[in-house]
């Protein structure tokens, strides 16, 4: 009876771990798309509203999808505390990145945007934002492909792996 209970716990734990890994594959393209939406909002703030960067970031935070709003909110907060836009953006990226499902290469892409933020004219700012947005597009396609391949795999692998382990140990 105890063995049976142990085996059930093992299958359940392993299954949940598999589901969690699987869902991170689903979350990544969603977060990338949200990020792209956030950057488009920022481009609008810069090109039409001409809002100063701290205000622009706060406005984007208020309107961006929930997944990425904290990134813009943290960057606005950091910038309001003084220092350079690049430093504020990179700190916010690092903090936000810890809880996100983005791959390191995605984060590097977002991080690199900080180098250009706010230090040039409008057209230059827009072309930087467009460039990053275009690169995100590629990452989204790649992430979607990886999600289609891996989500189901990890969902099954968790439960089946747990079951196999339970059988061996039984």
């Amino acid at each position, binding site marked *: 009876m105890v063995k049976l209970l142990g085996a059930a716990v093992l299958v359940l734990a392993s299954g949940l771990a598999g589901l969690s890994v699987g869902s991170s594959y689903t979350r990544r393209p969603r977060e990338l798309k949200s990020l792209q939406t956030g950057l488009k909002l920022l481009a609008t703030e810069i090109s039409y509203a001409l*809002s100063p960067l701290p205000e622009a970031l706060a406005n984007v935070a208020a309107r961006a999808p929930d997944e990425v709003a904290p990134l813009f909110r943290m960057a606005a907060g950091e910038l309001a505390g003084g220092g350079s836009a690049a430093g504020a953006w990179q700190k916010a990226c690092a903090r936000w990145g810890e809880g996100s499902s983005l791959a390191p290469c995605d984060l590097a892409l977002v991080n690199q945007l900080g180098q250009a933020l706010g*230090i040039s*004219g*409008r057209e230059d700012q827009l072309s930087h934002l467009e460039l990053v947005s275009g690169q995100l597009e590629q990452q989204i396609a790649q992430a979607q492909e990886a999600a289609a391949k891996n989500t189901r795999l990890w969902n099954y692998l968790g439960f089946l792996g747990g079951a196999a382990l339970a059988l061996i140990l039984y």
Partner: protein
Amino acid sequence: MIAPALIGQSREIEPWPGLWPFLPSRVAGALRGLPGSVLAAVEEIRLRTGRPLAVTVAGRAVPAGNLVVEAADMQACVELISASSLYALEEELRRGFLTLPGGHRVGLAGQAVLSDGKVRALKHLAGLNIRVAREVKGVAAPLVPHLYDRKTDRIRHTVLVSPPGGGKTTVLRDLVRLLSEGVSSLRLPGRAVGLVDERSEVAGCYRGVARLDVGPNTDVLDNCPKAQGLMMFLRSMGPRVLATDEIGREADVDALLEAVSAGVSLLATAHAGSAAELCRRPALARLMGAGAVERVVVLGRTPTPGTVVGIYGGWPLAEVESGG
């Protein structure tokens, strides 16, 4: 001397407190190392990439410590003065200067970006000239009796004249404040003043609100071309005095002549070393010839900026009061 000294406030209070947050740490550190008397008298702070940091004191460039301004200092300063939003300052980049809260004006030098042969913006900024705005209340008080005609209860059309750095803007700002507030000792009631502040230097407007004291009855058209601004005020705001900084173009003179015929008193400043030099400027000679200038106040730098050298009137100009 008619006007008291503009400078030389005590070191107890750190001079120009509003400016420090816009200076990168290395630059601020070098400036804080200057003797208090120099710091209090600083007129300009000049940053040039690859060159020593310098300040202007009494019209002369003085090195500020041994600091050589690096590209990173320049970048940091540009970020601070633009609130990391250079893209929002295209108009300022086109004109070559921007105004900080507190009225401090920053002149910009770099590489011009042209469009149809006109400067569209500046990039690769490599030179900044921060002009410290000085608000010296009361500096223009001794001038008011010379400009107020009690019989007709009007202010005489006046042009303040000095070479650059002579204290014109500071005196104009205080004059505007006094006329707007009124001077009880002269039984001069306050009156509506329209201030066309094309370079945001007189009222130090930031986001449209005057940050320097220009009086309770003063309306400010910030960042507005003088000729257009003067006409706008005449049509809509009913001023009794119209004030503006640095006139000299034909278009300014046309607008000023129009204002004179509308019964408004004029208060303006112009670059010129002396009354004779002023007469040699064609547009201004036309203004004076038309009787639109009743008093020319010549200001000098010695012993301090804002010192009245002489007051002239009539046409051709004749001295009515000597400053010496």
